[in-house]
């Protein structure tokens, strides 16, 4: 019975030690685990200077401009406080549209434009049929007006 108790304590101690070590490690690497920077963080100069980083935010409504005859597209990314212009050339994900959350990977150029070579779309955890989404939007609009 005593041996069993000792073994239990030993296993618990090892587990606690590893748990604390991992928690400290994750705290130390907190910034590297952050997947993207928001426009506010970029404007505040928190994003790495002259290096590639990811910019995340919402596509400003009506800001998408496509250049006819090419894959070039430009749009604005906002977090409802700061807004940054983004340029990209390539295929966009299906979910890319006005108001959608996007994550662009690239660099800031000298003109203050974020030149992306990869654009990913982020979606939320809500799933519903289109009719429900419409009804919700309507209810939300009524509430505001």
């Amino acid at each position, binding site marked *: 019975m005593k041996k*069993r108790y000792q*073994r*239990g304590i030993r*296993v618990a101690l*090892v*587990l606690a030690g*590893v*748990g604390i070590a*991992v928690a400290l490690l*994750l705290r130390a690497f*907190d910034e590297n*685990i*952050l*997947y*993207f920077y928001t426009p506010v963080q970029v404007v505040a100069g928190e994003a790495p200077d002259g290096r590639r980083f990811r910019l*995340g935010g919402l596509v400003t409504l009506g800001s998408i401009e496509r250049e006819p005859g090419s894959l070039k597209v430009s749009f604005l990314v906002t977090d409802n406080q700061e807004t940054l212009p983004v340029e990209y050339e390539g*295929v*966009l*994900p*299906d*979910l*890319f549209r006005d108001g959608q959350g996007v*994550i662009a990977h690239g660099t800031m150029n000298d003109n203050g434009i974020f030149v992306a070579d*990869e*654009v*990913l*779309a*982020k*979606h*939320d*955890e*809500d*799933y*519903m*049929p*289109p009719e*429900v*989404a*419409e009804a*919700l939007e309507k209810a939300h609009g009524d509430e505001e007006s």
Partner: protein
Amino acid sequence: MWKLFHQFGSPPHFYRLAGYLIPWFGAAALILILVATYGGLVLAPADYQQGDGFRIIYVHVPSASMSLFAYTLMATAAGIGLIWRIKLAHAVAAAAAPIGASFTFLALATGSIWGKPMWGTWWAWDARLTSELILLFLFLGYMSLRAANDDTGKADRASGLLAVVGVVNVPIIHYSVEWWNSLHQGATIMKLGKPAITGDMLWPLLMMIAGFGCYFATVLMIRTRSQVLQRERNTHWLKEL
């Protein structure tokens, strides 16, 4: 109470009980998965954003939740085996590892297939994706550590400790989408309030998770029985069988 504990830990008793339960769990898994497949692919409406593409959720979420469940069960069994020196518990842990690894692989693969059209990428070094990949390596590490040791008792103890230590990854996977900015969206089923998912989309998903759970239980019992046969090959009760 202790008597029950010891009786459950006795291999002949488990062998008989599992033999009786396997067909029931197998049948339940089959029925649940078939009904949930019909519910998910035919009855559930298309999503307002992702259209019919969201239906891969009915494979992705059950495999991902089973991968976490399988790991927690394996670590618990290994812990019981280490502390109480119950061989049957180590047999359960050893039997669970390959099934858990398969669920993890399935979750990563379906996530990748889902990510390409919706997010625009097969893979991203995002907190959720990376921690789930580490889970796969933990399963594989546990299995290779077992395979590297010919002595069953030593293999049980070494791999059991790895399984127990690796359990710290389970809460990290679950909370990764809350702790860090990530590409992966937050939890749907566990979310409180707000319409995270409508009822006609939710019930096939929950039923599919239950079906995957029954399937996991079925395969786990079959595999544990074969582990028991191998470990107890020289014992009296087996010769009588």
